[in-house]
């Protein structure tokens, strides 16, 4: 699995958010971090086809997927789990997970995949008949990630999976994400929890003002303090 984002520019209407940004995910786990409002989410939305880039190319496994519909991009095995995940408020967990396997590639395998998702998130199995809007924040996140996994991704893009969660839940989710990575699924993760990203990823990009401000390829070369310094202006 190889994702190459080459000099992508994109935005909303006349507001340009991404400025010729380039990143690569090569059979690995890649983290995106940086201040809010600087284009991380927009980058994922552009990769998954929700936003059409004004310039640049997105190449997935050798295929140019620039400007293709989200539908056909999901079909290639590139799955985006959006942020905050109100997901499908008035659907049961079971229905939401089933829909996660909507793509033609994933649909025939949906029962087997669901067993895997349930063993990864036993809580979802307990809550399967419950409506998504009655789930706790952590459970919603699990349901959203679970639905993403139902699409049989080669590369899973997660947008702030631990946002707003208590430390204990955050650790639980981080563990699950590690388990997903261990199955060989590529990961592209946005998160504010630098510790989690450092523990998970082979490569980190700091995104600032729609550009890559820092590309950390070798994890051993970077210390927590350096990142914090870069991130907040001073070591915490």
């Amino acid at each position: 699995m190889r994702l190459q984002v080459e000099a992508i520019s994109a935005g909303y209407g006349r507001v340009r958010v991404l400025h010729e940004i380039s990143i690569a995910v090569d059979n690995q786990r890649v983290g995106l971090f940086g201040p809010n409002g600087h284009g991380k989410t927009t980058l994922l939305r552009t990769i998954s086809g929700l936003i059409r880039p004004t310039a640049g190319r997105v190449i997935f496994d050798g295929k140019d997927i620039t400007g293709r519909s989200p539908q056909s991009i999901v079909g290639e095995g590139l799955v985006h789990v959006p942020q905050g995940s109100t997901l499908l408020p008035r659907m049961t967990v079971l229905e939401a997970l089933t829909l996660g396997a909507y793509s033609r590639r994933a649909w025939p395998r949906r029962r087997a995949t669901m067993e895997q998702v349930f063993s990864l998130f036993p809580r979802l199995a307990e809550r399967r008949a419950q409506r998504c809007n009655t789930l706790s924040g952590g459970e919603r996140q699990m349901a959203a990630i679970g639905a993403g996994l139902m699409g049989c991704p080669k590369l899973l893009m997660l947008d702030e999976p631990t946002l707003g969660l208590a430390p204990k839940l955050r650790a639980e989710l981080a563990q699950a994400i590690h388990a997903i990575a261990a199955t060989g699924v590529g990961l592209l993760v946005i998160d504010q929890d630098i510790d989690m990203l450092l523990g998970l990823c082979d490569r980190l990009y700091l995104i600032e003002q729609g550009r890559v401000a820092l590309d950390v390829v070798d994890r051993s070369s970077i210390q927590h303090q350096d990142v914090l310094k870069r991130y907040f202006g001073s070591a915490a």
Partner: protein
Amino acid sequence: MGAIIVSGLVSGALYALVAAGLSLIWGSLGVFNFAHGVLLMTGAYAAWWLSSPDGLGLGLGIGIVGALAFMVVLGFVVYLLLVRPWIGKANAELAVIMTTIAGSIFLQNLILEIFGGRYKTIDQVVTGTVAIGGTTIQAQNLLVIILAPVLLIAMWLFLTRNRTGLAIRAVAQNQDAAQLFGIGVERIYIATFAVSAVLAGVAGILLGGLFNISPDMGTDPLLRAFVVVVFGGLGSLPGTILGAYAIGMIEAFSSYYIGIYWTPVVLFVVLIGVLVVRPTGLMGRPT
């Protein structure tokens, strides 16, 4: 008393079929299809033309199946011409009110031009009468009473079990999430219109067996369906169905005890009363 309940159940069943289609489209596209009543009327005419000896004379079976197949196509055409160009644009809901009203005026007059103003009748799917609990019911009425819930349950199963049905609800609840699941929103809109048009067609054929077929036969059911949808709660299918039977019953009892001319007044008083207490309708959710 029995006769009043039967009449209420028949109206409730028909309103439920008409309003369910309307509610489905409102739920997933966020627009009101004012051509829904004309779809109902066209379904009845299609069945009449295919089945009646004055038309093609192919018999009622082919008439019904052919009419419903035609409804799928017509639903698609209505979506393509009257709705699609405005989706995602500013004030889409207002634009679509106008385009669907325009479309329904056009279709109504087209039918009038083709088939003339004289009332038509389609054969009843079942004939004769049935005696139940001291009341004699026309078999066609009994069919309506039984068939509507069967169809609504089938629709519920479709929306909760079927891949396309689930996708219809997903698009209604969160379009971005639906797209990220790989759902083609446009295809789902077309499917929604097709299902909605078929429901209208079924209602038209059933109504055509009970009353006469005329170019304006859809106007009244559409008006009632709007009341039902608002009464039951916008976008809530269970609310719509509950609302349909409630309105049907209120109408039947009010027609008998208060009089037919006062019935619309009673209906709207009840509607206003419900909206004062629950502004989102019986089972609607706050937007």
